[in-house]
């Protein structure tokens, strides 16, 4: 099997190999070595923390930009189509390619990974925010205007709260995909759970542990966002309770 190596990615991740580990790794029939996993689980601490940082920063940056763009487009209709097309192009460019397009500009490291990952989230968050704002019923907006709300008050007090479920739905999709995609940050030298996977890419125990941590992390992020949405939309709970 041909294994391509990227530059300085390989650290001493699997430096200490006991004879038992070697026998376990040398045995291709063994899908998962519990012994090895028990002894080496602490190796995944740093990559996990890096992974959380990558995802959290990328999502926050992506959300800030996409939300601002959506509010701009909400106010200036002519911006809608070009912004949707622009974020669509960013979404389409494969993230691995994106990393390497950015390398000459930003160099190897976490920044490059974060820029590419947050660019990927723009389209999802932007589109959902626009859908959420568009789905606010006209009658509700009219009622707000009738109560004397200015355009700005209408946006922040009526339209955005009502659009929250759609916006959070976009955030959840973006976050879960970003947790998975961030394993590719290793190709940009950005660390994360891709590091241990790439360092020992034929050792299934390692792949299962690192991949499993990533999937659990995706579920955890998803539940956190769901919780935030519940807290941010108390009226939905009240409505559900009544019916």
């Amino acid at each position: 099997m041909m294994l391509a190596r990227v530059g300085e990615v390989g650290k001493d991740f699997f430096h200490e190999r006991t004879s038992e580990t070697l026998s376990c790794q040398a045995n291709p029939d063994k899908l998962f070595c519990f012994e090895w996993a028990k002894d080496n689980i602490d190796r995944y601490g740093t990559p996990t923390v890096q992974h959380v940082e990558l995802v959290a920063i990328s999502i926050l940056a992506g959300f800030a930009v996409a939300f601002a763009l959506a509010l701009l487009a909400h106010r200036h209709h002519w911006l809608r189509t070009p912004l949707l097309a622009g974020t669509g192009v960013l979404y389409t460019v494969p993230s691995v390619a994106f990393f390497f397009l950015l390398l000459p500009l930003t160099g190897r490291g976490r920044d490059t990974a974060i820029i590419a990952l947050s660019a990927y989230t723009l389209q999802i968050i932007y589109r959902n925010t626009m859908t959420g704002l568009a789905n606010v019923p006209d009658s509700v907006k009219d009622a707000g205007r009738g109560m004397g709300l200015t355009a700005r008050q209408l946006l922040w007090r009526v339209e955005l709260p009502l659009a929250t479920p759609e916006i959070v739905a976009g955030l959840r999709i973006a976050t879960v995909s970003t947790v998975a995609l961030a394993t590719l940050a290793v190709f940009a030298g950005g660390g994360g759970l891709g590091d241990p996977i790439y360092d020992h890419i034929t050792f299934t125990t390692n792949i299962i542990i690192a991949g499993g941590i990533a999937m659990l992390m995706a579920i955890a992020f998803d539940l956190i966002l769901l919780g935030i949405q519940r807290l941010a939309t108390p009226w939905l709970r009240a409505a559900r309770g009544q019916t």
Partner: protein
Amino acid sequence: MIPTLLTHLPLGSIGGALEFIFQSQPSSVTGGKEVGGPAQTIELALTQLEVTVLAVALSMAIALPIGLYLGHRGVGEALAVALGNAGRAVPELALIAFMAAVIGVGLFNVTIALSILGIPPILTNAFVGIRQVDRASVDAARGIGMTEAEILFKVEVPLAIPTLMAGIRGATIAIVATATIAPLAGVLTLGDYILNRNVYGEDGVLAGAIVVALLALALELALAGLQRLLTSRGLRLRPA
């Protein structure tokens, strides 16, 4: 900020990358054998396209019948939604590495690994698209005596084309993107330029990234065109 960016603009490296695409050049580690150039670039791009088309076709063959059936019957919503969510959480790198380690390397195995990425979006969107079809239309179709198969393929599927195609486009983008790391599993796609820096050099890495990005955009545009063709004329005229 802007001036620093301008001075760092990699015009030189982009020129080098373009040269790499259009003109093969000697590499320091291949013993004088030339790398890059149109012949190799096209060969790698075609492999990437081939594995993408195969994987998308396999995902469609598995996911469409299930999604359409469940959507038409209106059962299994929890399954369709859960599968869609779980599919997004699968880390691409771990999937490719795991499949390569377990069933070995090669085109067949990479196709299977990539199609696993494509099944959830296609299945979920097929289900959701069919379910979103106005029940009144379905009742009308049943009322004029259409069979269940006719209802599905003459009423529900045409009306669900935008959502169905969104799923297929999402799957295709995910698969073509992930096919970039297929060289890790022994299938030489454009990712070979990107992952083998010591053979192809910085110009080759950038060249690979540029061609992969163009390939993905071209696929997306082609599918958008296909979606237009598949959308029935009556629906196209209706404002979205």
